[in-house]
């Protein structure tokens, strides 16, 4: 054998490895910097933003005469968009997942649907904006409106709903299905009484992730739902949804970019960050509850 491998060192001889040490420190430094950056960002947003967040900031509309600024209209718009998008999207997403997991027999077709889902989740929001504008605002004649925003976001969060529901359904043991079918349950009865209750937690996680996506969304909504929220939506629900209006994120963009009002922009950013943190905590809580089961 070659000499290099001769066993002439004692196992107590420590080999000096300077490269190893440098590499180790590099990893820890990089990780530390990333951590510091995240904390710094959040701190900056909260420190600069929270002072602007007052009760009247949250609960009033902007008043140009009194020169006060309020984000209440955009909060209402955001809630409208979240609620109505979920009403449309959750049944479709869960239903699609049920089809993929329980009903579909043709494996090729399943792959086509899964590819479509993945494609949808890879399309950037600005393109959803262009598509939503062409189809919903122009072709369907909805104009720039919350309703157009709701339809556009439905397509956007559909892949999230399908994927999380599918994962939830997959985690239900096969033996539950056998047990129910073996007793003479029809498939739909089995889905309704066993699968859906057992995968409720996973579906809930999907809903929260979808809400997170909708709260963050700006590019698409800017094009299809409108860029400002100066007034409260008026009239019946349908009137309100047919009007244009911006959500919190779009409003942030308007204050920061179009109007250069960084104070207000940071105020909205602080509100958004708090929402994001709360949503994250909620998913974590659900995940822990599920694991305990």
């Amino acid at each position, binding site marked *: 054998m070659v000499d290099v491998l001769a066993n002439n060192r004692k196992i107590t001889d420590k080999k000096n490895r300077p490269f190893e040490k440098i590499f180790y420190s590099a990893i820890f430094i990089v*990780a530390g910097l990333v951590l510091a950056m995240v904390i710094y960002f959040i701190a900056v947003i909260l420190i600069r933003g929270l002072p602007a967040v007052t009760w009247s900031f949250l609960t009033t509309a902007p008043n140009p005469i009194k020169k006060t600024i309020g984000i209440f209209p955009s909060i209402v718009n955001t809630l409208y968009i979240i609620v109505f998008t979920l009403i449309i999207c959750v049944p479709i997403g869960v*239903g699609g997942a*049920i089809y993929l997991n329980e*009903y579909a027999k043709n494996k090729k077709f399943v792959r086509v649907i899964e590819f*479509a889902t993945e494609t949808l989740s890879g399309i*950037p929001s600005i393109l959803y904006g262009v598509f939503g504008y062409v189809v919903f605002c122009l072709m369907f004649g909805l104009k720039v409106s919350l309703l157009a925003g709701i339809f556009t976001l439905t397509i956007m969060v559909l892949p999230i709903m399908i994927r999380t529901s599918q994962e939830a359904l997959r985690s239900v043991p096969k033996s539950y299905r056998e047990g129910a079918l073996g007793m003479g349950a029809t498939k739909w009865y089995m889905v309704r009484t066993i699968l859906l209750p057992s995968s409720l937690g996973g579906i809930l996680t999907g809903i929260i992730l979808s809400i997170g996506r909708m709260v963050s*969304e700006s*590019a698409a909504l800017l094009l299809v739902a409108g860029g400002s929220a100066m007034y409260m939506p008026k009239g019946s629900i349908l009137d309100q949804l047919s009007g244009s209006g911006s959500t919190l*994120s779009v409003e942030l963009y308007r204050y920061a970019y179009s109007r250069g009002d960084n104070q207000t922009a940071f105020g909205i950013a602080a509100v958004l960050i708090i929402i*994001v943190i709360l949503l994250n905590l909620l998913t974590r809580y659900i995940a822990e509850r599920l694991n305990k089961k």
Partner: protein
Amino acid sequence: MTDNISIIGSNKSKNAVEKSMNIIFFVCGLAAVVCVICMTVYMIISGWPAIAKIGVFRFLFGQVWSPENSEFGIFPMILASFIATFSAIFLALPVGVLVAVFLAKLTPKRVSAPFRTLIDLLAGIPSVVYGLLGAILIVPLIFKLQTAAGLPQGGSLLAAVIILVIMILPTIISVSETAIRAVPKQYEDASLALGSTKLQSIFRATVPAAKSGIVAGMVLGVGRAIGEAMAVMMVAGNAAIMPEFLKPVRLLTASIPIEWAYSSGLHREALYGIGLVLFIFIMIINISLNTVLKKGGELRG
């Protein structure tokens, strides 16, 4: 005991319900496919006319974008988008993989769990908030470099790259970490038993085994970076000129929201055309991601 019930079905309504549920779920499953087909069709229908009128070559490779003079060349934006995306990936990939190794291999759970929470949080921050932070914190950092180079102070390609690095980091970290954790511990043990150090084992045995997952994370990062509009728009300065790192640039995505409100006619159609170009890039990325994933087994970010 009732031995006299026939197993021949007589309950028509039960069968009807069963059949209609089957159809309803099928339609739900089809929804995603229909959406993708519709998007493809409408992106082409709306985007193609402008490209045809302007001319494919003049649109894609024209160097001047000046709607007032009916000049619609998007080459500078394509170039800017590519440079920004690939520089961002080039910087984010090593950082992301190192952090992933740190989280998966070098820390106890009580450190990695809260760390990961923060990374998740980073992934959830809206892009406009990144835009705001970039405009306030990052753009001014570059002022000095710009002054030293004799350039006016303002948004720049460099600022866009930095903000993109930060935005794609969470994707790369979490996908890589999942991939690294999925590698059987035996690989590392085998390497350790041959007398390598822990780091050698991680980087020569574990990380290479997780390669396809890391590549998937990278492709996802490319998709996210090339598609990001609002954040880069708020820091890049948005001049439609040939890209340089310290000068303002306009990315493909950003040109749509910037000019949307005041565009009409051929100008608006040209923006649809940009949408189509972007859509094609994204489809290419999606398909390559799919091939990477198929090769490396199931792993989604």
